[in-house]
């Protein structure tokens, strides 16, 4: 069986414009969440007035033409993919053997709604011809595929907040099956727009801690009151161990397992028994051929919603039993907010870096840990003791999607 390794990382997040600055800010316990200064917040009297905006604007990086032709979600995707490709040393691969598996949860919502404003105010003649290619959810994957010349298939995973993990899992399987030799995978989101904010708020999913945005995303804390929207993207370059070694590439770690399951329980609520999430973790570990005691670190989905955090704990307990308390858990959405379709990708990167540096990031804002969630969640970065440690990263999404990735140091 082929072995698949990670050789490149790229990201643009609320914590930083690249992987190094995002990781550094995460380790320093910074928050990427702040009050939104846009005039539409007051104009629409939004009940939530803060979010995790990308630390570095895409305008500062892309050409005016790229900005004009790409929805903000595709702009973030392209920025992160180019970084990952450079980080991987721009592998020489036949275009027919290079694929893209990318994700978005919501797609080109800015493009769609701006175009509708134009239609209403100025008529159909003024709707720009690029509107459809910009709003379509495969836009981010297509933009990356065009930029890097990928011809082994450019695919898009859409499974709400599990999308990023699902895309990486899909890419991993494509290398395993021999369909491609190198894959750029990840996810992007740019949905800090008044409509998604109003809609998520309408379902009481968002934190309303408007007076203290930096403290609003607080997974596992007794005072958590919902998630905080974030934006940005993450990308990883995956290839076979053989090809990485042959070209002398840096290897971050191996991806050893993945699993995608579904709850078929409720469109938005997690299964309180955590059965589907637990099955995803178990099958990812079975695929990896490791036992539960090999797992030392978990980057949890942990969005800071009252029910979601408990459901994930229940699932972890089902899988790990008495080993649960040995796990060093990081809930990095406390710092980044929830990047929706980009979350899995950014958290996979944090998981990969935790293994590389043998250091689990701390979790901020955990002041009074919920007694129903007795996990080991260090506030400060915490050393991982095993060089051959396995780490998993969980992502779950509206629709009952569960996607889990397992990584191991080589």
């Amino acid at each position, binding site marked *: 069986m082929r072995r698949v390794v990670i050789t490149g990382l790229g990201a643009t997040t609320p914590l930083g414009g690249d992987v190094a600055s995002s990781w550094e800010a995460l380790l320093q316990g910074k928050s990427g969440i702040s009050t939104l200064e846009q005039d539409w917040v007051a104009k629409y009297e939004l009940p939530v007035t803060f979010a995790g905006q990308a630390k570095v604007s895409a305008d500062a990086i892309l*050409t005016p*033409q790229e900005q*004009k032709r790409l929805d903000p979600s595709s702009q973030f995707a392209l920025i992160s993919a180019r970084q990952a490709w450079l980080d991987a040393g721009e592998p020489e691969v036949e275009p027919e053997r290079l694929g893209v598996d990318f994700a978005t949860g919501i797609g080109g919502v800015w493009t769609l709604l701006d175009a509708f404003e134009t239609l209403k105010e100025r008529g159909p003649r*003024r709707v*720009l*011809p*690029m509107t459809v*290619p910009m709003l379509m959810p495969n836009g981010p994957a297509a933009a990356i595929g065009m930029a890097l010349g990928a011809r082994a298939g450019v695919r898009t995973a859409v499974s709400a907040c599990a999308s990023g993990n699902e895309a990486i899992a899909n890419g991993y399987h494509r290398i395993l099956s021999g369909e491609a030799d190198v894959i750029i995978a990840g996810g992007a989101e740019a949905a800090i727009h008044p409509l998604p904010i109003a809609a998520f708020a309408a379902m009481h999913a968002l934190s309303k801690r408007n007076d203290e945005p930096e403290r609003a995303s607080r997974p596992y804390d007794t005072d958590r009151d919902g998630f905080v929207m974030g934006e940005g993207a993450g990308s990883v370059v995956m290839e076979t161990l053989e090809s990485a070694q042959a070209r002398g590439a840096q290897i971050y770690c191996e991806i050893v397992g993945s699993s995608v399951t579904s709850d078929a329980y409720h469109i938005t609520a997690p299964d309180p028994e955590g059965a589907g999430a637990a099955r995803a973790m178990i099958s990812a570990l079975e695929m990896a051929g490791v036992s539960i005691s090999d797992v030392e670190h978990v980057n949890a989905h942990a969005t800071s919603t009252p029910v979601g955090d408990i459901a994930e704990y229940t699932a972890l307990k089902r899988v790990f039993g008495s080993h649960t308390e040995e796990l060093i858990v990081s809930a990095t959405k406390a710092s980044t907010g929830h990047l929706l379709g980009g979350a899995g990708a950014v958290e996979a990167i944090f998981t990969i870096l935790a293994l590389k540096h043998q250091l689990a990031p701390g979790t901020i804002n955990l002041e009074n840990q919920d007694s129903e969630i007795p996990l080991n969640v260090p506030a400060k970065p915490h050393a991982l003791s095993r060089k051959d440690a396995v780490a998993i990263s969980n992502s779950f999404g509206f629709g009952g999607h569960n996607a889990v990735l397992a990584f191991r140091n080589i």
Partner: protein
Amino acid sequence: MALTEAEVLAGLAELVNDETGISADAVQMDKSFTDDLDIDSISMMTIVVNAEDKFGVKIPDEEVKNLITVADAVNFISSNQG
């Protein structure tokens, strides 16, 4: 007051540059939008929509296919300005 031909050319060159990144200096009267400037159909339509706004003219869809060169566009705009 109607713009001069040179002013229309300069304005059009600005729209082309804005949409495609092609240098405004390269947008000369004898250049073909597709063969010389390598402008694709979606960019062409975007330039047309923006030109309607900028010059206050209506460029019907059936007219766009006749705008082969920059001169064709400049002439059409100059003779149809409101």
